[in-house]
């Protein structure tokens, strides 16, 4: 269906090149490139909610197109190029692996605006990057996980060894360790953002090794399904609320709220005020939300978690506040010092206490 729309669009764009651009479009065309299906119930689902919010906000003035399940790599470049050829005015590419393809296509289409999620490369003036400080949510998760675990083993399903994922592991670990010095993290690298079968296997392996809390940085609900099957294991919604697993195993969640950002950026294109920016928002502006903490979590732990969330929302607390050491024991942050965005953006080391190496 989508593929057909896009093919038809490409044909139309070829036929109309010149005319369509000359009249400056009656509608602003907004493209979205998704790494998973819109029904994943996680990462892509929330981006699609953002797309729908853009449609709701501007009604007839916008037209949105999207393509789901776009592999990271060469295929992505083809898809982005096609969207640009179709006459999209602004294209949101919503996964880390689209970083180079986005920049490559942007260089060829200087009049189209590109917005790349979670990356850091802005090689041409028509590329912006945006991301959310998910690690603030991970801090809350880590706190709950550290307090709730009885086996002191926490399983972590990591996707790819990129800074965003490493930040999440570090943030969760620091806050779990703070409330439970005996806590241990077992990390499985799944090398996928979305593969329910693999995620379920990884979760099952972690549970069999005694983990009774599963944290996931992959996008499907399969790890929660595995936790439910095992019983006595809790987990968290990733990127989306994953409310169908309430009240347990899903005891809370990190929700990405992209709608305000998408609306603002599309508005900027309409007004002609769009500029290349690097946006990195957290809990305070509402880009990261903490989903309802269910009654499976005792009231006092819930209160502490909410207090931490409030402190981050008020800007009083930074999850990466010293004293913190790197894995090899060297000092990273001195007492009271907080991490700068540059270090965080390129984070490639574990903090002290985590075991195992980060794969290359």
């Amino acid at each position: 269906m989508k593929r057909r729309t896009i093919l038809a669009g490409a044909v139309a764009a070829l036929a109309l090149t010149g005319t369509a651009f000359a009249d400056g479009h009656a509608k602003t065309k907004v493209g979205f490139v998704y790494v998973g299906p819109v029904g994943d119930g996680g990462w892509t689902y929330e981006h699609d909610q953002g797309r729908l919010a853009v449609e709701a906000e501007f009604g007839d003035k916008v037209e949105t197109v999207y393509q789901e399940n776009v592999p990271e790599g060469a295929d992505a470049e083809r898809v982005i190029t096609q969207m640009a050829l179709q006459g999209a005015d602004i294209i949101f590419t919503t996964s880390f692996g689209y970083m180079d393809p986005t920049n490559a296509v942007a260089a060829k289409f200087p009049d189209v605006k590109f917005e790349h999620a979670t990356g850091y490369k802005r090689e041409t003036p028509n590329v912006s990057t945006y991301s959310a400080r998910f690690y603030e949510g991970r801090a809350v998760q880590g706190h709950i996980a550290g307090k709730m675990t009885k086996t002191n083993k926490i399983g972590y399903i990591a996707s790819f060894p990129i800074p965003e994922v490493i930040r999440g592991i570090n943030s969760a670990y620091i806050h779990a360790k703070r409330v439970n010095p005996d806590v241990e993290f077992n990390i499985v690298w799944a090398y996928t953002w979305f593969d329910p079968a693999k995620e379920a296997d990884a979760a099952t392996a972690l549970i069999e090794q005694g983990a009774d809390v599963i944290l996931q940085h992959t996008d499907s609900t399969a790890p929660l399904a595995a936790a439910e099957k095992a019983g006595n294991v809790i987990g968290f919604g990733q990127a989306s609320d994953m409310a169908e697993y309430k009240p347990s195993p899903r005891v809370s969640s990190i929700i990405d709220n992209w709608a305000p950002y998408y609306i603002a950026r599309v508005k900027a294109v309409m007004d002609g005020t769009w500029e290349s920016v690097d946006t990195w928002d957290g809990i305070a502006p509402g880009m990261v939300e903490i989903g309802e903490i269910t009654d499976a979590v005792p009231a006092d732990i819930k209160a502490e978690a909410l207090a931490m969330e409030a402190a981050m929302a008020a800007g009083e607390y930074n999850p990466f506040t010293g004293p913190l050491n790197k894995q090899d024991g060297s000092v990273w942050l001195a007492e009271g010092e907080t991490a700068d965005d540059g270090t965080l953006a390129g984070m490639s080391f574990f903090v002290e206490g985590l075991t195992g190496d980060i794969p290359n």
Partner: protein
Amino acid sequence: MDLSSISPTLLIASLMVAATPILLAAIGELIVEKAGVLNLGVEGMMITGAICGFAIAVETGSPVIGFIAAAAGGALLSLIFGVLTQYLLSNQVATGLALTLFGLGLSSLMGQSYVGIKPPQTNKLDIPVLSDIPVLGPILFNHDIMVYFALALVVLVWLGLNRTRAGLVLRAVGENHDAAHALGYKVIRVRLLAIMFGGACAGLGGAYLSLIRVPQWTEGMTAGAGWIALAIVVFGAWRPFRVLLGAYLFGGVTVLQLNLQAAGLAIPVEYLSMSPYLITIAVLVVMSAKRGRTSLAAPASLGRIFHASQ
């Protein structure tokens, strides 16, 4: 690294679960090949079974009806292959490959509205008393019914092939279809039934993935399991119990490598991920090389087109 955290009991229990989809598909394909037909469409039939079973289980709320629908879906798809190769005499290799591609496309079309939905839960059998036996309990008596079904199927297929008249006819058709035809056996009918049996088994294997093991529907979720099943039939030298061994070996290494990773073993993840494929191939090659003649156990008419006029 803490290898002591890996529990052998749980490992064996979960390798049985991990191996079940491949085992079901492989045992079905074994019957197909024993009848002299090479159906390379296992992957396509598996994934079609996965979505048929998932969709029907979600709509009816019953996993059992889902599994029946999966078998029916797989069999129906295999019937396309059967008609093309048996009546229209098309090339089996090309038709099988086409069936895989067709199945993958068809399933993602059918599955459009089922992404991200939770299927009804299939309960574990949890036999009282028996499942509480230490070590043996969790390994043998604490699975869902499909694990036992797959094991029973292996035994039944072995009995059927080696101890019944029908099995003899099936093997005769697979070894020499002209002779079987001369004896008055309906070669095409036997083969069509075998193909449908294979399709139904592959469908069940796929549904096991989408309804129990994952449990969720996503495009391409079989991720090559059908090809592994095909390979296991060949390496297992067309013998039911050796196919069982191959499937458990593959399932076992798949589960073990995840456990090793979770335990923090200092081997690069990439090597661990490829290990199930390497080890399964290596072990089965060594096994079939040793016995000399068993490596030649392929049914003599495998992949050959039959027409009564010849």
